[in-house]
């Protein structure tokens, strides 16, 4: 009996130890995820995936475009987090605390990442360098009162309704679509323009979903976004419309032989996935989780593309 009690106690103790280990590992994983997310590495991986999608759809041979876009994305978003730390503190205190704590490392790291991206891009020629510098120019225009003190007419583009999101979408769509082509030395075709428009619409969705958790902060600083002006229901309906436009675009492109069906099918599935997730806007309170679900569309699309291409 005593032996059984001893064994039982031992099992209990071992179980507690295991529980502690699991809890520690879990906490470490959560911390790592937060670092991954807050430091913009996550967004960089997402952008790299988007370039991967573009390269597969455009059938561009492997080149340095994905790491260049990844580095640029990390740099731009890290800087954006530093710039917006005050407003982020209203909506995501943990993120703001992380950025404040590591700001003195984050900015030099971002500048270094951008420098590295430029180094790689410069070796690809003038066009790839120009495309790599483009998000940097938007970085400057987007985050700073460039015309401060010169004229009242040019105030932060960030505050302009739709223009702010459209500007981000254009910048990323240009880089994601044309940088791989610039590296490969290819030309611009109707397929390229279709892919460009596709990414413009997809980044537009991502940007506006990203604006949902920031809507209080944006309202405070006078930035007009769809969530600020039309609320969650309005945002959901607006993004449904953008998704419909995406599906329409892909359908027309397939019908016009500008896209192959093996490429279009995964993109359509991705858009369908986005439809479902966007339906959760205003119905699911976990805004951070919602953003991640929307962003996951590109991971889903990328994996599906590979699967379809391997099967085909």
């Amino acid at each position, binding site marked *: 009996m005593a032996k059984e009690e001893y064994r039982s106690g031992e099992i209990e103790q071992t179980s507690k130890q295991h529980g502690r280990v699991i809890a520690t590992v879990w906490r470490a994983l959560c911390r790592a995820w937060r670092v991954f997310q807050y430091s913009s590495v996550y967004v960089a991986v997402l952008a790299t995936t988007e370039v991967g999608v573009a390269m597969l759809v455009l059938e561009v041979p492997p080149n340095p475009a994905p790491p260049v876009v990844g580095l640029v994305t990390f*740099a731009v978003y890290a*800087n954006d987090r530093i710039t917006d730390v005050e407003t982020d503190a209203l909506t995501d205190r943990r993120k703001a605390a992380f950025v404040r704590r590591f700001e003195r490392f984050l*900015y*030099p790291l*971002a*500048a*270094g990442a*951008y*420098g*590295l*991206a*430029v*180094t*790689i891009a*410069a*070796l690809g*020629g*003038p066009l790839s*360098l120009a495309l790599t510098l483009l998000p*940097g120019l938007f970085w*400057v225009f987007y985050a*700073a009162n460039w015309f401060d003190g010169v004229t009242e007419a040019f105030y932060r583009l960030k505050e302009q309704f739709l223009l702010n999101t459209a500007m981000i979408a254009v910048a990323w769509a240009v880089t994601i679509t044309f940088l791989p082509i610039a590296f490969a030395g290819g030309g611009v075709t109707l397929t390229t323009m279709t892919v460009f428009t596709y990414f413009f619409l997809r980044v537009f969705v991502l940007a506006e979903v990203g604006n949902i958790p920031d809507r209080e902060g944006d309202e405070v600083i006078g930035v007009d976004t769809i969530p600020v002006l039309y609320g969650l229901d309005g945002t959901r309906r607006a993004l449904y419309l953008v998704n419909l436009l995406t599906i329409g675009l892909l359908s027309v492109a397939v019908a016009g032989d500008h896209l192959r069906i093996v490429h279009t099918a995964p993109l359509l599935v991705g858009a369908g996935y986005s439809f479902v997730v966007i339906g959760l806007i205003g119905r699911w309170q976990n805004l951070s989780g919602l953003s991640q679900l929307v962003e996951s569309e590109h991971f889903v699309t990328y994996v599906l593309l590979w699967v379809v291409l391997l099967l085909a």
Partner: protein
Amino acid sequence: MWDIDTLSVVYAVTLGVGVSAALIAWRERDEPGAIPLLGMFVGQCIWVAFSLFDLQLATFEGKILWSELLWIGVVSIPVSWLLFSLEYTGRDQYVRPRYVLVLSVIPAVTIALALTSRAHDLLYTTSELVVYQGQTFLNRSIGPWVWVVMGYTYLLGVLGTIPLLDFIRCESTMFRGQSGAILLGTLAPWVSNALFLGGVISIPAFDPTPIAFSVSGVAYLGAVTQFQLFSTTPSAGQHARRLFIDQLQEGVVVVDDHGFVVDMNDSARVVFGVEEERVLGEQARTVFRRCDSAQRHESQGGRETVYSPHTDTLYDITRTEITDSHDRTVGTIFSFHDIGDHVRNQQRHEVLNRLFRHNIRTDTNLIVSHAELLEADDETGDPGKIKRGAYHIEETAAKARAILDVFEQSREQTAASELSTLLAGCVDLIAERYPSATVESEPVPAGVYVDGILETVFTNVLDNAIVHNDGPNPCVEVTVEEYAETVTVEFADDGPGIDEYEQSVIERGTETALQHSSGLGLWLIKWGAEIADGDVTFQANEPSGTILAITVPKIDPGADAEGDLDQLLEP
């Protein structure tokens, strides 16, 4: 070693370092020198990037295009360098749009010439492709304008270096490190460019300057990370020094070792009644003569003093020699300390001293003499004189008390009083005190405020006018003239008038053993008016008597000390 692929990688890395450095400078754009430094980085990046594309292309047309465009970067660097140096060292008064425009004329002309270089020979006389160790380079023979640009570049380079050299010798390790790193970063490309222009580089048509920018980038990043460039800049110190000198209450004039005025602060400009622009570069002797030399006092406590007619004040002069690092005298600082208050206090002290030494002793002697006579013989002594002597002492004591009250009030915050109320109070008091006298007062403008200390002054003026009038019905007329910033109150009496001798003593402001006034009344009036920032003048009245005019500044009753303090505490 010199294959194009390796060189391309070096160029690309240099470009990457330049972009990183530019982004760091952009973040610090509010700090002094950050924007010009950003301009310099952008110029370097343009030069490096276009050199890289020139290097990578093998076609003649392509190489020509990039070699022309890279001039944009080449010419923007020296201008940015000079602007950075000026701003970083606190000389940002020269970083103004019009100066930047002037500095940009030669760069703008150069860019225009570069973009049209195939239409003229000013920038390049010949262009050809040369092959060196299997690599294709563009060889261009430089034209006359290149020497103009190079001369201009090196001139701006030297001008930008001079202010930074000051900090190389500075005691602060931080500023020494910053300046050293910046100078190293700037010298590297210049030296390599000079070697290229001098034909020292063995590879034909290869300018290694863009590679040297990698040294610049590392040096500048070192200045930012190791020596906190932008976190701590010497710019504030330079401004603070200037501001400190400008805001000193003492006048400061800096004279070089040739006797010319090289600097002057605001207070000194007031002392000499001049504007800075008109004085700098003038002989100090000429400027100093603007103060009345006839009234120079050599004996004020053994110190040299000067009287300024522009401020109506005496100044004590201090000379401090300026020496360089080799202990050579390179100039002199003259500081002018306002000793007007000190001198006035000294004069008051002398007058009061005389009062106690002379007047009271005289009265006391008189009383004692008559008392002794009375003691010896009832018929000889005069009790009336004893009585008058005692009254005289009492009167002097009352005046002394009034003077002490006035001095006491002068140490306190000025209390504004409405002139009409103040004057009416004085007139009523005198009318009550001397029923046989007539005091006529014209209507006084409402809303005029003066220093409250004038109540004692006006009462004494009226009192003196009546007491010293021998007539049965003394009369005093009071009139008030209001001006923009001052107000004049005139008291016209019909008495015997104030003796000219008395007037001259009072106007001179001090007494001597041989020259002194008869009493304290006029001194009280003069000192009280001075404490109220005013002055007193005398004029003969017709047919008899004196017109005593007191002119004082008007006071804003709202400007009290508490308000000032609140304003001071506002951000």
